[in-house]
């Protein structure tokens, strides 16, 4: 069973429907206690600003629960703002703490048009070596964001906007994050979502 963390930041329905489209059973977890042994993958979605989302995670007990979950080596996947919250801190309307599970801070994008909204290409970095998506480098995914991770130490995929490259997919151990929305990226997005969920839950690590 996959648990989608519902910490009252944005719509969880589309993420749930995406997993259900390839046969996963999904629990919308409203409380940290719902992240039990039965859960094979915790998903942290999120839309909106970093600050209020960070406050929500830390005030509801979710931050502590997810750090413990991660510390036990269990699979964790962040999407969009959810990926940003896995990082060390967010510089959006001030400085806010992230969960600190992925190195780097979330910084403003520098581009003529903000938000970065629409379909952009993702190039695989080839790291980690055992992550081999069936989609080619250059496949398009749907982005909507104004801040990004520029630290490349956990980058599995990168994207360029107006000449500046940022990390659009992170993958370290059993923790992954997408800056784009795989659940809104058509068949390519669903395919990558499934392969990543399977990779995070693989038997050997």
């Amino acid at each position, binding site marked *: 069973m996959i648990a989608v963390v519902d910490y009252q930041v944005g719509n969880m329905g589309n993420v749930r429907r995406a997993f259900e489209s390839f046969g996963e059973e999904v629990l919308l977890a409203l409380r940290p206690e719902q992240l039990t042994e039965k859960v094979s993958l915790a998903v942290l979605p999120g839309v*909106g600003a970093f600050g209020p989302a960070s406050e929500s995670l830390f005030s509801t007990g979710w931050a502590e629960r997810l750090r413990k979950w991660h510390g036990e080596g269990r699979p964790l996947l962040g999407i969009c703002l959810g990926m940003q919250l896995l990082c060390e801190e967010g510089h959006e309307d001030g400085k806010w703490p992230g969960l600190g599970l992925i190195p780097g801070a979330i910084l403003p994008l520098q581009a003529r048009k*903000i938000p970065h909204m*629409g*379909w952009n290409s993702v190039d695989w970095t080839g790291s980690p070596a055992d992550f081999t998506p069936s989609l080619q480098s250059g496949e398009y995914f749907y982005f909507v964001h104004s801040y990004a991770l520029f630290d490349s130490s956990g980058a599995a995929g990168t994207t360029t906007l107006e000449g500046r490259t940022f990390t659009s997919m992170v993958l370290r151990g059993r923790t992954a994050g997408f800056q784009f929305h795989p659940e*809104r990226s058509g068949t390519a997005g669903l395919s990558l979502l499934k392969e990543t969920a399977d990779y995070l839950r693989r038997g050997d690590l």
Partner: protein
Amino acid sequence: MLTKRIIPCLDVRNGRVVKGINFQNLRDAGDPAEMAAFYMDEGADELVFLDISASAEGRGTRKDWVLKVAEALFIPFTVGGGISTPEEAREIIALGADKISLNTAAVNNPSLIGDCARLLGRQGVVLAVDAKATGEGKWEVYTSGGRTATGMDVLEWIREGVRRGCGEILLTSMDRDGVKGGYDTELNALAASAVSVPLIASGGAGSAEHILEAFRKGSDGALAASIFHYGEVRIGELKEWLSERGIPVRKRS
């Protein structure tokens, strides 16, 4: 590379798509969810649904069809038409829409833009503007489906909209809408350079050339209705054609 977006627009009245779609493989050309799935498969980059129901009763079905569209789609979609409170906007997003668009209600109450942006994030709020040319390089904002002149200047209004928090502009030329003679590229070019958020051109698409022209003049997305609904332009072929002419588009893998 960030691609230019092709956006079919569907008008919905009392829960049904009006002006249907002329493709033989469709079971029910009036069903919003079936239309949505059809355009996703055609290669549309996102969809816009405008609820043109004249009454609150007509919009009563909105909750049902927005949810069904959300269940059918794995690409983004926007819902507009008659949204006048942040609560209504939030309800539509909670059902699964990615963005809401504001038009008349934002003109009547500009603080609605900021209120929605704070609730949903800027990226979820589209300001839809109906523009009518009034003279050399001048356009006036109209509301209520083009029936009411406001005296407001289009470029000033979209700048204010962005200042107040909208994350995208959907700009419709009333002079060009339905004429199929091409977008108002002069207006779109001025608007695209006036604001720092994406601009969607609307009103007047009659051919692939018109869409190419809109992109070359700075629009980030091109919205069209009848050329797609009647199969005059198929999205896959359109994207091939645009790509050959140097426009970055998302082609199907």
